């Protein structure tokens, strides 16, 4: 740590570690039993946080105390193992160690050997490891219980990578299973979410391993399975989007020598019909999206490729946690963030102004704070998310769902955002427009998606005229700027501001409006303050043109609250001005 403010990187806190990775992988095996060799607090947190993303699952614990850890917790582990074997009769036991046990380096393997339960797997995630390290370690250790001598089963594959707490794993597995069945290929084992111990043991029966999340996990296990059991693997194509789903399936068909790919043709025919839907290109071609996939790099790669190449959606920002994924995505997106802080993402959302954001709970919160209304949950962490076999992101149906959800989320949302009141006025009357204001409105219009442009411009036009009427002036550039800032969705604000930044010195400024004889007088003592202000700062409000004082007070207070200040001081006021670029 170097000592500058940049090191205060809280973003890592919302990133799971190798310990989560290992537990998510083991608890997905339905009839196995996972013991978290850990203090009770670690156990509760891990169990609860898994249950907010997956249906229901069990986790057991050794409930270690400080004394247990200091004096060696082998006895406790042995006791818990014996008890769960007797009471629960598991098909296998997975023991995952906690960070405190990794510090003291308990002899967990020794205990497992002493208890002698046949199918016991010990997983020791590394302190400092990332989530994929834990998943890979767990998958690799599970190879030890696989039966190498099982006979091969024709036209079967294993799906490697889905684990508990992988966003949407259930729907994606369901869709890939359906697609494989369409060409006559059966899924032998899913490693690991939803699998049974028997399926894990018999994984070597499969003819091919398919890595579902090659930018995240599973490739190491696939390589090792190739070495140990002679099973080749595919990890090149991410089956997201129509073309890549077809290529992925054709690759599997080719591997097994399946010539009849009529299923792929049928699916692609349906995809072509879908692409002809009036509501597809009409909307997606005008659309921009930000993808925040800190915990699912594979989604980031697959969805950015698909959106850009097949849906014409502009990817204005993509956030990932893998360097390899970041390099790959740079081909489709100019703004790729690698392990950004939440604040860096916030800034990028505001400056890149996406029409929709795909992301996790934090992205949702930030997008709400910044006024972005169109959001699609697509990654962890969540603080509670219910998933089913429906709504995949992968495969043919996944491609349709991605477009469907985007169009339905954004289209009507933007329409409604740009409309006036249900029974509002249609026109403010005859109000003259100054030429700069008209030019600005035209430029703004060019930045609004076509499918909503006319409606949005109507609203801006009306509000500008109403404002001018209230002030008894023409519609001026300053009024246009104020209206554009106040009455447009956040996603357009950054773009709109460029219109006014581009204006030359000769244009009218808000200051000039304020000093005009018609300007409304707003004395400082008439303003409403909802939090304490230093007198010195109140005096500074005198420098602000009268018409903007109320808004300056409310925006400054909002800024102060957002940054946890109880009082508006000179420093707070200056910081806010600086943020506004003043």
């Amino acid at each position, binding site marked *: 740590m170097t000592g500058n403010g940049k090191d*205060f990187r809280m973003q890592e806190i919302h990133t799971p570690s190798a310990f989560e990775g290992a537990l998510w992988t083991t608890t997905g095996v339905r009839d196995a039993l996972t013991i978290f060799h850990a203090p009770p*607090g670690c156990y509760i947190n891990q169990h609860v946080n898994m249950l907010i993303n997956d249906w229901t699952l069990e986790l057991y614990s050794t409930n270690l105390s400080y004394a247990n850890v200091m004096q060696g917790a082998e006895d406790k582990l042995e006791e818990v193992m014996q008890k769960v074997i007797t009471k629960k009769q598991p098909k296998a036991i997975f023991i995952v160690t906690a960070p405190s046990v990794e510090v003291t380096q308990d002899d967990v393997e020794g205990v497992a050997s002493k208890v002698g339960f046949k199918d016991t797997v010990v997983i020791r995630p590394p302190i400092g490891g990332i989530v994929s390290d834990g998943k890979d370690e767990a998958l690799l250790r599970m190879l030890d219980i696989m039966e190498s001598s099982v006979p091969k089963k024709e036209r079967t594959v294993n799906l490697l990578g889905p684990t508990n707490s992988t966003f949407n794993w259930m729907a994606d597995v369901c869709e890939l299973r359906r697609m494989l069945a369409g060409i006559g290929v059966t899924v032998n084992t899913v490693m690991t979410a939803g699998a049974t111990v028997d399926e894990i043991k018999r994984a070597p029966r499969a003819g091919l391993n398919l890595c579902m999340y090659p930018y995240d996990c599973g490739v190491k296990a696939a390589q090792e399975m190739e070495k140990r059991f002679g099973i080749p693997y595919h990890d090149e194509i991410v089956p997201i989007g129509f073309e890549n789903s077809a290529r992925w399936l054709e690759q599997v068909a080719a591997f097994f020598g399946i010539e009849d790919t009529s299923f792929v043709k049928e699916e692609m025919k349906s995809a072509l019909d879908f692409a002809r839907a009036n509501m597809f290109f009409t909307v997606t071609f005008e659309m921009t999206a930000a993808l925040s996939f800190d915990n699912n790099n594979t989604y980031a790669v697959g969805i950015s490729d698909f959106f850009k190449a097949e849906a014409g959606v502009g990817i204005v920002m993509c956030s990932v946690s893998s360097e390899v994924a970041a390099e790959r995505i740079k081909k489709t997106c100019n703004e790729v963030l690698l392990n950004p802080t939440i604040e860096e993402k916030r800034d990028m959302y505001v400056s890149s102004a996406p029409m929709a954001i795909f992301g996790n709970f934090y992205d949702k919160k930030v997008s709400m704070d910044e006024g972005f209304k169109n959001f699609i949950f697509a990654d962890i962490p969540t603080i509670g998310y219910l998933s089913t076999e429906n709504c995949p992101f992968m495969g043919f149906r996944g491609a349709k769902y991605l477009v469907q959800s985007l169009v339905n989320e954004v289209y009507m949302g933007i329409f409604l955002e740009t409309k006036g009141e249900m029974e509002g006025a249609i026109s403010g009357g005859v109000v003259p427009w100054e030429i700069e204001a008209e030019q600005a409105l035209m430029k703004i219009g060019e930045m609004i998606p076509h499918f909503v442009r006319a409606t949005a411009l109507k609203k801006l036009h009306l509000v500008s005229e109403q404002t001018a009427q209230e002030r008894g002036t023409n519609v001026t550039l300053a009024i246009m700027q104020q209206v554009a800032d106040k009455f447009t969705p956040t996603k357009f604000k950054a773009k709109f501001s460029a219109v006014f930044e581009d204006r030359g010195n000769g244009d009218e400024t808000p200051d000039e409006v304020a000093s005009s004889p018609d300007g409304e007088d707003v004395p400082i003592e008439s303003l409403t303050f909802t939090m304490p202000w230093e007198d010195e700062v109140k005096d500074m409000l005198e420098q602000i043109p009268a018409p903007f004082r109320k808004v300056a007070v409310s925006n400054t207070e909002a800024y102060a609250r957002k940054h946890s200040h109880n009082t508006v001081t000179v420093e707070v006021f200056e910081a806010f001005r600086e943020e506004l670029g003043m």
Partner: protein
Amino acid sequence: MPLKSYEHCCSTIQALASLGKIEGVIPLLHGPQPCLYQNQVGSMSCRPAQLLTAGTLINKSNVIFGGEESLKQQVRNIYAKYKPKAVVIINTCVPQLIGEDIEGVIVELAEEIPELTVVTFKSGFNYPRSMPLGSDASWAALIDSFEVEPKVPGSIGIVGRTGQDAGNLASIDILLKKAGLKTFLFPVPHIDELKKIVCADTLYPIHITPHLTCKRLKERFGTESHFIEIPVGIEGTSNFFRGVADREKNQKLHDLVDEEEKRVRPEFEKIKATFQGRGMRMLLVTGPANEVSIGKIMAEFGVEVFIVPCMKNAFYQQEKEIMQKRYGATFIEDDFDTLEDLIEEIKPTVVSAEFQAQVETVKTFIPTIINMVYLCEYGYDYALDLGANFFKTIKQPVYEKWQSLMAQYGG
């Protein structure tokens, strides 16, 4: 020996959630990545603001060479960014294990940033059997930073449970104020107000949890505390207020309680009648100590209650005795392996348990309420609302529907 833990959460989360509700205080988690990630996600749902946790992310090299420098730097960063009045370092399991010198860090920081208060306490497996103590321990640490102030004669301090109580003690405070008593509440949502608890002449804890808090206030400021009973339900609330009235020699408070009883009694009797003849047996398993308070409310309605307590301090012992004598409540203090074992033994008709325990009740679709959402349960009206809506809340017919589907289709 339990095969799981059915407690509310890690004491670290409990502390984080409580301190996170006090403006002017920033909790700093000193621990490794999984600890920070889990506590951050876990506390997210109960924090009103400042949704990001500050932490140190102890890594392998910190384990070997010590993480004090990182910790110090992170306190500086927090101060530069947020200018808090106090930083509370939550010292989690791993730094405790490797014997980090947190106090040494605090001494050095005091020289460097004298205007900032930095305190610390140990969480995690320091409280392996009573995790709600995470709040109590963090309050006690914060109290260490309070300065002595003159006491307000005749004033009383109401000491609540967790950060959840901050700003939510009106049901108790209103009556006391009406009786003309000067009150200081703890916790409250701002550190400047929180500190004023030292001005209270006498303390009245209103839950079983703040035992350490009261002890520390006595040690530091000489304030006596009197635990009367938890003011929940009708009888419990009245007895609490009457206890205060007697001690403070305040007849007006007695009169107000008479009025309140007159107001609530008819509705209470109606609600109680709805519970009669149903053979209700409620198992309340360890939560944020509300297994005792919600249990008391339910027992007053005539429900047979079985309580697995989360703590066994002196306040609990007193409350337990009251509930045993008054309602015949059963307290289960012995270890059990799993909740399923207890259910098999007690055969409850409804269970109140933590989120992770629901995995076991849902197997057979036993009506279950998640106890962490039943907080701020003080006073008359909470009890009336809980009782009047209880059967609506537990949605018994839905459980019965699924039980019948299970009988028909198996699974």
